[in-house]
């Protein structure tokens, strides 16, 4: 299997060779790196060569193939991120990193589907995170390796152009499907929910989840014309009678609780298109899948990548594996 985890010294050497890199690692390791053609995001959880692992020493490396030309890095904030899709070059793609829970993350999550040229070209990436033991104490960050700048609120994007004989394709693997239970709709878009319509009847969502003993390890699932799109539960605030989510729900979209999953790894492997694995340029999977499905030391169909606080395939997703393949036309 191809090497994906590198020591800081090895990454430093790649940077000094002028390689174009997308990096994932613990903040303290990324801070040791010299400036160069790279972007990075903080996370200490990975699907590595040998399986799921927590690692604060090594760095997950995605090296851009030499045939990728016209690549450039742009740092956005919540106010100019609306041009992220129009900035992607012709026959190109954008690779985006955003720190979890910053204003840019919230803005992107809510507004990306309305940005100009949404989904015309692939925008993939992930929401950066921290060691779960440091939640609330350490902030997730992204790095612009070109300038050496470390960013707590913003998005760093590596835009790149493929040669004429290549084409990219972004897909997801989501093992969750809508269950057969109640249907939920929400009166407004948002991450924090109080009111919900359950089969058309208005209720408090926190009360509903508690009274019905809903397993909040399973996401809400919407059916997007055959593709299941998840929204994961963060917490139920009993006192505030409010439900906090890891991605926004959208008004007029129908959601249901996911069908329970018995064996994530087996189901994942059966959902993974086998012929795509060798041409995968990048993939990432969700921290909630890593935790709830106990992926540490387990392999998922030979797929590697950072474990993330949110996945981006055009827009923010939860509890989903995102992958991008590059192939000949």
């Amino acid at each position, binding site marked *: 299997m191809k090497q994906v985890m590198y020591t800081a010294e090895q990454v430093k050497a790649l940077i000094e060779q002028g390689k174009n890199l997308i990096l994932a690692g613990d903040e303290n390791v990324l801070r040791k790196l010299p400036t160069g053609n790279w972007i990075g995001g903080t996370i200490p959880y990975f699907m590595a060569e040998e399986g799921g692992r927590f690692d604060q020493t090594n760095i997950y490396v995605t090296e851009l193939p030499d045939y990728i030309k016209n690549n450039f890095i742009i740092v956005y904030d919540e106010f100019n991120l609306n041009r992220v899709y129009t900035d992607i070059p012709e026959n190109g793609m954008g690779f985006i990193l955003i720190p979890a829970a910053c204003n840019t993350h919230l803005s992107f999550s809510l507004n990306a589907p309305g940005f100009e040229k*949404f989904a015309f070209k*692939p925008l993939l990436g992930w929401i950066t995170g921290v060691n779960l033991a440091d939640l609330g104490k350490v902030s997730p960050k992204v790095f612009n390796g070109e300038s050496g700048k470390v960013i707590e609120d913003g998005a760093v994007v590596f835009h790149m152009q493929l040669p004429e004989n290549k084409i990219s394709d*972004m897909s997801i693997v989501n093992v969750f499907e809508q269950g057969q239970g109640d249907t939920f709709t929400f009166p407004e878009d948002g991450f924090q929910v109080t009111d919900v319509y359950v089969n058309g009847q208005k209720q408090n969502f926190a009360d509903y989840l508690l009274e019905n003993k809903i397993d909040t390890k399973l996401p809400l699932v919407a059916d997007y014309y*055959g593709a299941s799109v998840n929204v994961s539960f963060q917490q139920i605030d009993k006192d505030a009678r409010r439900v906090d989510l890891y991605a926004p729900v959208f*008004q007029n979209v129908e959601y249901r609780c996911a069908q329970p999953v018995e064996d994530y790894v087996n189901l994942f492997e059966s959902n993974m298109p086998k012929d795509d694995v060798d041409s995968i340029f990048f993939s990432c999977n969700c921290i909630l899948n890593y935790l709830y499905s106990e992926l540490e030391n387990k392999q998922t169909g030979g797929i590697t990548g950072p474990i993330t606080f949110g996945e981006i395939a055009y827009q923010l997703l939860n509890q989903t594996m995102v992958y991008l393949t590059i192939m000949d036309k």
Partner: protein
Amino acid sequence: MNVPPATDVRWKDVITGKVNYQFEFFAFNMCVKRLSLVLKRDSSQITLNKCTQELRDIFAENVQLPKVQRDLVKIFGKGGVA
């Protein structure tokens, strides 16, 4: 492969939900959902025209992908895109 013009009524049928296809290309799943929500808020002819044009343009942008070609055949049939 030929991508039919936005004025072809079958684009409208997709966005309004008159026909319901399961697309292979993930971008279409996202876009058709988004455009159907836009139309729910504003069903005017101007908005409908804008939405069908946008959907058509996304197909045209990605038409070199085999799964996009298969999705087009689902909507228009083999004869409609030859």
